[in-house]
């Protein structure tokens, strides 16, 4: 396996009215043809990391990195136009607020079909058939009806699935999925994960899977990066998540409610101010060429 993406010393900063916000503070990691999970608390910089890779951090955010290497090309040095081409064809991102990434005044079926036609030479009829197939594949029960709805008429979980269908169209080499299943019930979630899993195994896609669901990440991913206050505070193999040592990670694991054995009050994490000062762990991995 070789690295598809190597991110070195990435920073994202925002100047707000009263202070400078450092959303990401010098993180380094790599992604091969594997499933990388990113977990960490709300506001720790997970979404900004994904957006920064694709040049999607909005004004006035400033992104800096030693390099963001995608198969030998440094994304930090690309023009807007070249970066857009990478975004359209090679790296896709499923945004955390799916409904807001869709055009509110165009029917969702037309948006998917249009995107399909952009990537595959095909007639309108063919694109529509493909779109209906894709909706069915992400477990939408009534594809014909959903094809003709506007984004605001979708339920939370349907919006997420429409976005997933859309992002898989270009056959991306890397998929960045930001909380892609947070609104899905468990049975549908399983199906959607299977689709992503298959892309990693059969097509060698690299997956960056951002989620706050620890059990899910540890059972679904290969490696996990744990973020805290803009840094990577710990990294581990997914199967070792439950044996990690950092008190922050332990605290996260302890705050999980349990279905079978609920407690009166959930344990609360006591955040140590020193965690913020710990250096970021380098999560660039050596890839053998096997």
């Amino acid at each position, binding site marked *: 396996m070789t690295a598809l993406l190597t991110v070195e010393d990435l920073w994202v900063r925002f100047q707000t009215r*009263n202070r400078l916000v450092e959303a990401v503070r010098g993180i380094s990691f790599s992604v091969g043809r594997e499933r990388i999970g990113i977990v960490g608390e*709300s506001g720790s910089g997970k979404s900004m990391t994904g957006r920064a890779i694709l040049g999607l951090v*909005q004004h006035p955010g400033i992104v800096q990195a030693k390099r963001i290497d995608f198969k030998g090309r440094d994304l930090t040095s690309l023009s807007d136009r070249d970066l857009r081409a990478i975004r359209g064809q090679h790296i896709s991102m499923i945004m955390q*607020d799916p409904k807001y990434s869709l055009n509110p005044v165009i029917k969702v079926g037309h948006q998917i079909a249009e995107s399909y036609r952009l990537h595959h030479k095909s007639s309108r009829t063919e694109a529509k058939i493909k779109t209906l197939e894709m909706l069915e594949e992400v477990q939408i029960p009534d594809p014909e009806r959903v094809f003709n709805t506007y984004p605001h008429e979708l339920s939370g979980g349907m919006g997420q699935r429409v976005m997933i269908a859309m992002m898989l169209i270009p056959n991306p080499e890397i998929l960045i999925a930001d909380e892609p299943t947070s609104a899905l*019930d*468990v*049975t549908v979630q399983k199906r959607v994960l299977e689709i992503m899993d298959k892309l990693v195994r059969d097509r060698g896609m690299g997956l960056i899977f951002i989620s706050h669901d620890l059990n899910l990440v540890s059972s679904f991913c290969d490696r996990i990066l744990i973020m805290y206050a803009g840094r990577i505070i710990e990294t581990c193999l997914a199967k070792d998540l439950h044996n990690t040592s950092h008190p922050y990670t332990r605290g996260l694991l302890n705050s999980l409610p349990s*279905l079978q054995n609920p407690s009166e009050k*959930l344990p609360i*994490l006591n955040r140590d101010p020193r965690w913020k000062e710990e250096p970021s762990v380098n999560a660039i991995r050596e890839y053998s060429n096997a």
Partner: protein
Amino acid sequence: MLEAHNLHVWFGAGADKFHAVKDASFSISQGESFGLVGESGSGKSTILKAIIGLAENWTGHLTVDGETLGKKRNRNFYSKVQMVFQDPYASLHPRHTVDRCLSEPLRMRKTSNIDARINQSLNDVGLDPTYRFRYPHQLSGGQRQRVAIARTLIQDAKFLLLDEPTSALDVSVQAEILNLLNDLKRQKGLTYLLVSHDLAVVSHMCDRIAIMQAGKIVETIDKQMLRTATTETDYAAALISASHGFKRSTSQI
């Protein structure tokens, strides 16, 4: 606190008319937490929207706090019932700062100590005062969701409709919010109608749970039955058994 009898809800008209909720009946007593779970798209949010007055095309009987609901809700209703929307953007005005979003409901009720109340409510949801002057787009997904929760709690309603209130939160912040909700419930006798696809959250929070599929309530169980997976319908059984992490099978798809 709530009685729903033979509730039907439709969207659209003519050939596009869609029957989103079919004959749902359930009741919630004062001080109880009632959970709604089930398939994505099965009509959970729609039931909440019908109660709060955002889905107007419904039939059946809805009673809140002894008062039978018609098509319109008056001001008095909103002083008793408030909702956290599944989609935090929907409850936050994009051009209003967090400060304005929290102070407006307080001003409407002529509350004193507005400053202190705002700081307290931000603190309750784990945000420090520096977030007061941010706009919604300057927040992370989970921070936005917490502001939406703070806005709902600050209005002192006694019946809260909570639609996936912690779906964007990591488990440590989720634990703080769930504890906060349970504390408030104990102190003030609040009543909750909670939608979540996370059965562990539902099991932690709710006394009774209705399971929905394709617009219908297929089964209503209590928390003990949820914990021990004692169900009557296949759908409910499948839902509970699927909630144990991802198992990679070699023979899939």
